[in-house]
């Protein structure tokens, strides 16, 4: 495998797939917070307007009303930018959705920091950490358009609260039309022997490209995509770490509490190995092109490859772009 084929944005794929499935799921209703033309939930508004509920610029009520709808037999899919769906409305999610375990799907568009000119307010670097800590919440972070579609199909079969991370920009294809998502299972993207790399979401496409770069330099990466951050496939994680005895995580999210945190929790108790966590280093984002932000914040294939090489050489050194994380002052 070499170059990844260009693909569609996850937001397009997710809502397109849902509109195709909704006729078979008469209880599904889509709830929007005045951002449907950004998130692309407007595909539902255009195609099935009777099951699209506009809730305006009021996220606490949007999530609370979704909980109320769920008690009346509806299966709401709530759409907003991730920053507003999660942190703006967090208490509604905690008290009205997670605690009663209601069947509400929260679809966070525009996750991660690759959001162009939107900048810091719209870049939520904490959504995985927050939602993963919420008891009973399923957290899914698909990697490409096919997995975004498969996420729709998987969630339609799963009752209970779930959070899905979607992204804004078109991103490459890792999978194909036949792909089905098995919630709670990791997906091995490349077999390797030198180091195990765990990634999630669209970051898995960049991790894949990094693995290709490293293969060209003679290093074999065992690359594991983690679409379901919760429930986490602990057995799959341990098994993958055992193959190489060395682990790296990479994610478009803070290095605190996200995928890296989840993997560290499993490995530290079940198979302690050296683990390096790559991602946003406990700071907020800023404006910029996807390419420049990926470079600056340590998400690009080139930066990942460099970091993995340092880990493998057993001598992690601080560099300007990506210093070892979670390990200050040593």
């Amino acid at each position, binding site marked *: 495998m070499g170059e990844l084929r260009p693909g569609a944005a996850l937001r397009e794929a997710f809502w397109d797939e849902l509109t195709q499935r909704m006729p078979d799921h008469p209880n599904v*209703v889509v709830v929007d917070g005045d951002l449907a033309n950004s998130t692309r939930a407007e595909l539902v508004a255009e195609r099935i307007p009777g099951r699209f*509920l506009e*809730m*305006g610029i*009021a996220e*606490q*009520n*949007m*999530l*609370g*009303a*979704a*909980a*109320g*709808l*769920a*008690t*009346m*037999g*509806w299966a709401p899919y709530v759409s907003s930018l991730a920053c507003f769906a999660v942190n703006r409305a967090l*208490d*509604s999610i*905690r*008290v*009205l959705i997670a*605690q*009663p*375990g209601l069947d509400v799907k929260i679809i966070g568009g525009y996750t991660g920091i690759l959001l162009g000119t939107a900048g810091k307010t719209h870049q939520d670097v904490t959504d995985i950490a927050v939602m993963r800590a919420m008891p009973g919440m399923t957290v899914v972070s698909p990697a490409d358009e096919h997995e975004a579609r498969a996420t729709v199909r998987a969630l339609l079969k799963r009752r209970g609260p779930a959070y899905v991370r979607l992204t804004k920009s078109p991103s490459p294809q890792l999978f194909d039309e036949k792909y089905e998502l098995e919630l709670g299972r990791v997906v091995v993207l490349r077999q390797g022997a030198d180091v195990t790399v765990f990634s999630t979401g669209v970051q898995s496409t960049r991790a894949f490209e990094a693995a290709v770069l490293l293969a060209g330099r003679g290093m074999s990466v065992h690359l594991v995509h983690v679409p379901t951050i919760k429930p986490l496939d602990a057995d799959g994680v341990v098994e993958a770490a055992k193959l190489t005895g060395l682990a790296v995580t990479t994610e478009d999210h803070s290095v605190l509490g996200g995928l890296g945190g989840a993997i560290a929790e499993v490995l530290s108790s079940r198979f302690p190995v050296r683990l390096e966590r790559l991602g946003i280093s406990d700071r907020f984002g800023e404006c910029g092109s996807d390419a420049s932000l990926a470079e600056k914040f340590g998400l690009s294939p080139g930066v990942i490859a460099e970091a993995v090489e340092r880990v493998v050489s057993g001598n992690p050194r601080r560099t300007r772009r990506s210093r070892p994380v979670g390990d200050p002052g040593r």
Partner: protein
Amino acid sequence: MRSSNEARVKVSEPRDIHKIAQRARAMVVQTAALSGGGHIGGPLSAADILAVLYFHVMNVRPSEPTWEQRDRFVLSKGHSSLALYAILSLRGYFEPSEMSTFGAVDSRLQGHPDMTKLPGIDMSTGSLGLGFTAAVGMALGAQRRGSRERIYVMLGDGECQEGAVWEGAHIAQRYKLDNLCAVLDCNGLQQYGWPGASGSREAPWAGRMLEGVFEAFGWATKVVDGHDVEALEEAFAWAETTKGRPAVVIAKTVKGKGVKFMEGDFTWHSRVPTEGELAAALSELEGEAGGSEGA
């Protein structure tokens, strides 16, 4: 039309509903003293409203608490759970003796209502303002499926300081949710609030401000004495005939109602009565409720 075999018990005499409310008040005070926690002032102000809803207004089946066509009730001011539990038990949802488990580990009677534990609770609440938004969603859900259930939600006047209330109020009006009836337990006090003249506290909202805001949000409003059973019955009937917009019954109440030394004293928001205070409160309440046979 709406079926009403077991559903509405229709306690016809307002005097009887008043006795039920007094009995519930006694259970509130007794349970708070026994458990060493919970809230008192708000439950006492809310008791008559809850008694009217569950014994006269709402279409419910205590023996079948998940009956799909039941009217829903959300206690958005979830800290007044003791009053709701007392009324639910008197209505037959569970044995009144279970009140003694309130707040203990493994109890179905959580400090703030938990729909996953106690059948009859239509929505978990406890974070102010949010139960109201869930009620808006319930009303929208009923409207969208074309069913006739009515959704009742009780808020405190202090609670209406939460912004989520106004997010929900706007959406309820926009979707013309005339199946939604909010009732405000306006007892004029909140947990701490602002100091007023000569040791008193300022009300959560000045003058007619709260009524005015609901009016401005397009709601039908009606102000009633929240301890006058007949007035409450009429207000809920009025709300049911209101079409094309949501209705709010603004019930003027007294915090700590029914126990003279608690009335209007904000410190009784969540104070635990001593043995002496309990005895004094019970003799006052049970005198009026007609002892344990009051219900």
